[in-house]
């Protein structure tokens, strides 16, 4: 199944770029906030960190952000969502899967998060089929943003996700006094229709290229080898329990790395009952493979009882298992797991580089 709208060839990368004044961009966003029935969300500053939140005004956008607490995945696959409601009347159950899911206009998405959403699309729309995700995703607009700041924990350049030429409706790059916008879809093009834009000049396009090239060199962390080598490297070290245990000893098994990951999509479903009557709903919420009971079954057996097994599973999943199923290494190098790990053992560059050194020493 092909689901991605193929961009018209006339809105290709180079000749499709437009330039607009920053004030025009604000006009666009404020217009959407006022007129579009969908929520308009973007990165904002909130108590010590950046988060994607609903926008009251384009002026609240913190486009200088380096990394948000959670990725915009939360708008497509929410932390908590009703999968099914049930109600019993006269001995019959009415069971309805939610159909009121709504799309969102997400402003200011960095390329690594766009890459993560492309991967989630592949899993939830192209391959397995998840109706709540599909509906939200297809009703949503993604306005990407070339990174202005680089988080010290990030290594997106190593994962090829510091820049991107796909996965957005619009991609905005700040070139100083104005924005250059790349159009990624028909809907993206429509957004610009009423704005004062002009085709980007050769030098403006060159400036975007320069910013992108420069950006790739600004990362403090990096993978010491091409990510294509990850699957093989991990397969080689699967049985190296001493290695996995050395990390697991310091691991709190708290699941934070799973929760903040833009490509994690494991979930659990539980019943929430109404207090009055035989009714309620099935609630889906994010789950994490680092958590103790993730691989246990009703009879009590836990197939990943040891922290080291769970720790290994996480890294295997990111670099090997998902690759074997979908052809993607499912780490985009955002650095969120590193930032949020209280015990400081979640950094993929630490783990993967250590493995690489062990093999190539």
């Amino acid at each position, binding site marked *: 199944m092909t689901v991605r709208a193929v961009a018209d060839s006339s809105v290709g990368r180079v000749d499709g770029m437009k330039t607009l004044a920053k004030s025009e961009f604000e006009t666009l966003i404020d217009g959407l906030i006022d007129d579009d029935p969908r929520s308009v969300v973007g990165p904002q500053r909130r108590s010590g960190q950046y988060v994607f939140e609903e926008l009251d005004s384009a002026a609240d956008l913190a486009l200088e952000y380096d990394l948000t607490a959670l990725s915009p995945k939360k708008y497509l696959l929410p932390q908590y969502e009703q999968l099914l409601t049930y109600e019993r009347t006269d001995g019959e159950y009415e069971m309805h899967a939610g159909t009121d899911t709504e799309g969102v206009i997400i402003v200011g998405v960095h390329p690594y998060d766009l890459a993560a959403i492309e991967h989630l699309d592949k899993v939830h729309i192209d391959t397995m089929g998840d109706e709540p995700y599909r509906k939200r995703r297809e009703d949503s607009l993604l306005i990407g943003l070339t990174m202005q700041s680089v988080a010290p924990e990030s290594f997106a350049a190593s994962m090829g996700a510091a820049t991107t030429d796909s996965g957005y409706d619009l991609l905005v790059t700040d070139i100083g006094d104005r924005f250059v916008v790349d159009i990624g879809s028909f809907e993206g093009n429509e957004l610009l229709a009423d704005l004062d834009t002009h085709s980007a000049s050769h030098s403006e396009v060159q400036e975007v290229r320069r910013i992108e090239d420069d950006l790739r060199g600004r990362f403090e962390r990096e993978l010491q080898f091409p990510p294509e080598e990850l699957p093989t490297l991990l397969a080689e070290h699967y049985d190296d329990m001493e290695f996995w245990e050395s990390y697991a000893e*310091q691991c709190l098994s708290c*699941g*934070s790395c799973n929760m903040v990951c833009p490509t994690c999509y494991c979930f659990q479903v539980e019943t929430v009952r109404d207090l009055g009557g035989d009714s309620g709903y099935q609630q889906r919420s994010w789950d994490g493979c680092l958590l103790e009971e993730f691989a246990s079954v009703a009879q009590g057996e836990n197939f990943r009882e040891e922290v080291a097994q769970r720790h290994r599973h996480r890294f295997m999943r990111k670099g090997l298992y998902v690759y074997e199923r979908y052809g993607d290494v499912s780490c985009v190098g955002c650095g969120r797991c590193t930032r949020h790990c*209280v015990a400081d053992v979640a950094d993929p560059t630490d783990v993967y580089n250590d493995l690489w050194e062990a093999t190539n020493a």
Partner: protein
Amino acid sequence: MTERPRVAFFDFTGCEGDQLQVVNLEERLFDLVEVVEVVSFREAMSEHSDDYEIAFIEGSVVTAHDEERLAGIRENADVVVALGSCAAFGGINAIRNDQDFETVTERVYGDDADMIEANPEARPIESVVEVDATIPGCPIDREEFVQVVTGLIRGVEPTLPNHPVCVECKLEENECAFHRDEICLGPVTRGGCGADCVGEGTHCWGCRGMVDTPSEDAYTAVLEEHGLDAEEIVEQYQLYWGWQRPERATQEEAQ
């Protein structure tokens, strides 16, 4: 369980804040009494009956009289639910468990200390009677209470979440208390509270008890990293876990 089970609330040593949470269901209280018949609830009504199926017990056990009374309730009830952290695992009362009992009573009661007849340790109700379900928290979470009640009616054995508070902090996008240079018990504390305390700008105090298998060594290393010495680390654990933590250690050793 009958269609509309008869329910009683009892308080032992505690602040009655958990029963207050039940009263605080406000308009949902009307829904509650549609599905259960409350026959005893000192905080909310004057009637009392000893004919009940579900007993909700708040507070910890601190006297010989508590033990007798608790055994009587167990006898009457089909289902016993520990309501709140004191009943569930000793809670804040157990803060005195590792201190000299006489010193404690003198400090609290001064010249009247002699009049206090209590056990040297505050204990959860499970140390005296069998407990069928637990709703931890200081105070309890109202929604969790509703789910336990509706579950019991529906024949569902209530299970406690076994993920640490960190999970909910991440889902709520709270700034990590450690990032604010605060000490937080979240990584080893049972979640299910929505991480409200961290969300409100403070840290997790451990009120829902420890997760089933806390990574204590890894956590101790984190605390040391944040400048705590051994004594200060134990102090962190002592606020709510004065009974639970040593008990866990004993059980682990036995295994």
